């Protein structure tokens, strides 16, 4: 428990007492931070934001030198944060891309339709032991029934897709309510007791095939039991918990849902529910029509703009909007203050992008990638980093893995790490 992130509960409560009537979280947080006294290390977080369908290079590519560069049309919404971001250029060398392999490419560096452990899970194994959730997965888009790899960013060691929460209200409850309540925990504990014993008996007489299925089920039971145990141990010591209200959940339309999802990532970090989170903003091969932007073509169709200007125009508008949503996530994290006055963003490394490069050509080369992070993130921000040798994307991921303290020399097809990405 050396890394446990504690804020004296009493001081939190005092803060709440003063500010209870105020509706907005942003206003409340400074009052808290001054009330807190004990300095414990604030953890590093990893947030991953993915949107499918790739980009149009003419709308995406930033221009200029490493330190003096101009953001492109797509990246324009990040202008206010230009000193907090790193734009990567010419990373990833997988010549062929396709939608089914794009999410795995984004998360493992390899286009494998049966992906192995994704890089966020490697990091989560290392930094997620003490938090309520070792990692948390969200998606703003509903399921595409054609394939799992169109719907999941995170895969565990056994290659099983991690659970993705798609309902904002449920995600909120899971993060901030539910097992946080002692009564619920007690009831859940007895219920699971009744489930576990007979299941173990069932397992003894089951065939090999049945065993495999039942053990997956038991894994899930174990996850809940671990969660209960963690809750009991930490005794509600998660910071800022009392400040989170479910006003955050807005469900009317897609932009509101997106805002909720990105806010939830920020709040999950702030309350130390998890230190690794991923959010699918748009599925691979998403056919959403962004009518709220006045667009008419569906996303996937417009990604195959060929030589049609109007389609390329629509595609770029949609992509710019997704980048703006990433900007919202940055903004939200900047607004959430830690007890020492720094922001959540200061301690976060965020990665935004797609597992497809050129959307029309289905390329796995030169992936659109933006990293963002504040002053304690270690990121070498305010840069446009171009890599002439076109290193595999696994190098980016290995760099991140090492940054989070995992001792690893190799990750999938990595050939080294990306230089200049972090302050050495």
């Amino acid at each position: 428990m050396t890394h446990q992130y504690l804020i004296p509960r009493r001081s939190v409560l005092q803060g709440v007492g003063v500010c209870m009537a105020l509706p907005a979280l942003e206003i409340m947080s400074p009052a808290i931070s001054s009330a807190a006294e004990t300095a414990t290390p604030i953890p590093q977080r990893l947030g991953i934001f993915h949107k499918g369908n790739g980009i149009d290079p003419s709308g995406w590519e930033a221009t200029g030198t490493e330190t003096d560069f101009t953001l492109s049309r797509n990246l324009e919404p990040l202008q206010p944060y230009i000193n907090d971001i790193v734009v990567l250029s010419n990373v990833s060398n997988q010549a062929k891309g396709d939608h089914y392999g794009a999410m795995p490419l984004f998360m493992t560096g390899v286009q494998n339709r049966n992906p192995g452990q994704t890089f966020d899970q490697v990091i989560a194994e290392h930094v997620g032991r003490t938090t309520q959730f070792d990692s948390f997965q969200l998606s703003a888009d509903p399921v595409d029934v054609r394939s799992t790899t169109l719907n999941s960013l995170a895969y565990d060691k056994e290659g099983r897709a991690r659970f993705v929460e798609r309902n904002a209200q449920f995600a909120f409850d899971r993060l901030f309510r539910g097992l946080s309540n002692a009564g619920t925990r007690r009831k859940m504990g007895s219920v699971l007791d009744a489930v576990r014993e007979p299941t173990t008996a069932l397992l003894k007489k089951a065939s090999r095939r049945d065993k495999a299925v039942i053990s997956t089920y038991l894994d899930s039971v174990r996850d809940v039991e671990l969660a209960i145990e963690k809750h009991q141990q930490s005794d509600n010591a998660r910071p800022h918990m009392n400040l989170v209200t479910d006003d955050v959940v807005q469900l009317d339309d897609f932009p509101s849902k997106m805002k909720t999802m990105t806010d939830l990532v920020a709040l999950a970090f702030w309350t130390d529910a998890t230190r690794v989170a991923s959010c699918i903003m748009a599925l691979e091969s998403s056919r959403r029509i962004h009518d709220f932007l006045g667009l008419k073509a569906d996303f996937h169709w417009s990604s195959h703009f060929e030589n049609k200007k109007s389609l390329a125009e629509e595609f770029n508008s949609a992509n710019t909007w997704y980048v703006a949503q990433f900007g919202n996530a940055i903004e939200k994290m900047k607004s959430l203050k830690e007890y020492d006055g720094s922001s959540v963003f200061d301690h976060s490394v965020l990665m935004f992008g797609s597992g497809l490069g050129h959307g029309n050509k289905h390329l796995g080369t030169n992936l659109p990638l933006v990293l963002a992070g504040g002053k304690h993130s270690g990121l070498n921000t305010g840069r446009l980093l171009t890599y002439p040798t076109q290193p595999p994307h696994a190098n980016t991921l290995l760099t991140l893995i090492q940054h989070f303290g995992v001792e690893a020399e190799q990750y999938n097809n990595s050939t080294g790490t990306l230089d200049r990405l972090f302050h050495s």
Partner: protein
Amino acid sequence: MSGRLIFTAAIVIAQLTSATAQQQTPALNHPVSTMLKTRCLECHSSEARSGGMNLEARLASFNPETDVDDWAKVEHAVVSGKMPPPDETALTETQRQQFRTWFDKEFVMPGGVQHPGPNRPRRLTREELQNTLEDILHVDLRVTVTNSRLHVIPETIIEKFFSASVIGDSGFSNDAVTLSEETIDIQTYSRCFSLVLSLLDSNEQARQQLFGQSSLPEEVTVADARPWIESFARSAWRRPGTPQEIAALTNVFEQVSRHGSAWEGIKASMLATLLSPSFLFRLEDTIAAAPESGRTAASSVTTVPPSELAVRLSYFLWSAPPDEELLRLAEDGTLQNDDVLRQQVRRMLADPKRVALAENLGGEWFDYKKLRQQSALNKRSDKMAGFYRTQFEEALLFFDSVIRYRQPVFSLVDADWAYLNAHQKNIYRLQTETKSFDEPEPLPPINLHYRDDSRQIHTQNYEYQHAPLTAVKLLDPDRGGFVTLGPTLSVTSTENRTSPIRRGVWVLERLLGQHLEVPDDVPDLDETRKKAKVDNRKLTNVELLKLHSSQAGCASCHQFIDPIGFGLEVFDQLGITRSITDENPSGEKLEWTPAETPKSYTDQAWTVTEPLIPGKETRVFFQYSKGRHRLNIRNVRLTSGEHVLEDRHFGFTGTARRDNVWFFPIPGDAPATGWTLTAEIQGDGGTDSHGIITIAGSDNTHPGYELPNGNSFRSPEELKQLLLSDYRDQITDNAIRRVLGYALGRKTLPVDRPAIEQIKDSIRDNGFRLTDLIEAVVLSFPFRHKEAP
């Protein structure tokens, strides 16, 4: 508490990994191996792996169990003559025969006996979960549907918690493999079930059925609670609980009621019952079957005991647990009797619960299930949401009518009826008559959206009434059957464009049962364009696609996909017939400027002066050049001497953009000249309508769309006829495989071939009726047998 569990789970996982690890099996030692090595390894070695096939590795370590898919591919390539490729020497008939015999021995009838194939535990799909909870808790989870045309069917509690499942190799979401791969999340289950159980708080009737009393006393002793707990476990687990299990559940009741009310305690024990794998999964007893080594031993095959058969049957036909009658027949053992099974299938199909077949089997087979989701997600306009809902209902009722009126599976491809109301007919611009079926004893109708007769669509005085859809006879032969049904044309498109490729793929996969895979080595469209640029050619998209498709890697699929897809381009993205495909058709122009448009259908005639080409098709377009009144046109004829050509297609013109087209294949022995064009026209008496009629001759006639077998078609009607004549076997095979795969929850394998043949034989006499097929699947060997894995 959890420490012990983690320990147990860890042991299990350790055992699993050792058991499932790729075991090195010995090399194939059979003359076939030599043949394959000499003839195939040049391209299919471990290095070359042409087409993704590493035959060298398959031969070096022969494992018929894990590599069955690869071997089935090899068999298909060898037996069909696809491999070796055309530019190599073909295998001799003897070699092929030798391979086939060997394959049958290893994969079709291992050990010389019939095998039921693998039987994995199946987790309940979200549809099964919903139906099951409704049945065992006596609550309504399905939402209220109204008769407003703009009404979207909202998500149910279950649908809110659980996303749609990914479709498995069987083509259905009830596939045991994909269901077991999906992440199970106990917290989601627990929250969902808690919410469903809380519905009991205010439902006296349900409590009466569950506990024999509508309200529980405040004090409930363990002895009082035990029978309730036992009986609920019995219905939830589809088997009686063991004493150990019941004790655990009673313990939950005790613990929770100590801190809260007795009612809370009861609900907690019910929650524990529902969270058990015995509820979430359909676990069959595998102990009865013989031990591991028995892959080739006939003794490892056992019949499915009646209690499990009842569960298989009810989840197949109803996506729900067995009812009282099935349980009774299972208990006295008579369910295993062929006649009893047949009689039960008939009883169950007559029950409104058979709606599950149209929702799940039909819905996923023909992909119309998506329309319901599309309706719910459609925030763009109420009108579109309502339209998709109606299309979902059209498809659902059509699929069910094939069962209800005991029609052959071929009517899924082509039929002369559809389910429409006046509103929908107008949208599609269809002319219809009353439909009557020959079937003397049709099954009772299903209750759209619900599983029983008692719930009704909520009727109110809505401004936009959704009139019920009824069976109508279609007069346009292009229409009818799933191929040209509005819902199909809609799901293969996005909201604002059609996709010929997706339509072609749909026909190939859903009707002919071909499984398409994107090969690794296909040059993409862009490279094709670059190549064309080098040749200094500017191509339209269709030409580009043609060029792309003619390349070797692409042709094998595209030669099938493209003609079908482009042939169906006469329908737009909503399934409405497009008027014309050319903007300005060339040809002879005839003027039409009536003094007054007739109010009743009246013949109008024109003399065609330019010659028509015998043996080719002539198209006639009616276009408005002026005027804004609607004009109905029907019964268009071309006559010359004794030759009378008719196109009875109904159409109308409204604004200048609304055009219409009629087709006339001119017979080879007909004269080129002397033609008169006649049409029945009806208007509103207005005088401001002026029109142009274009007689488009051979310049504009389409050469037809050629299928890989050399036959070509010009209209959707001809496409359907071609499919039914040239690909009839594939259509029947696919229907059998789909229904069998749905029933077994797995894709069909080589071991299923004998069963498929038996099913085919048994349904042939009555013309391959879908009801007979369903019955034959229930009576089939794999449905009634299992073996130890």
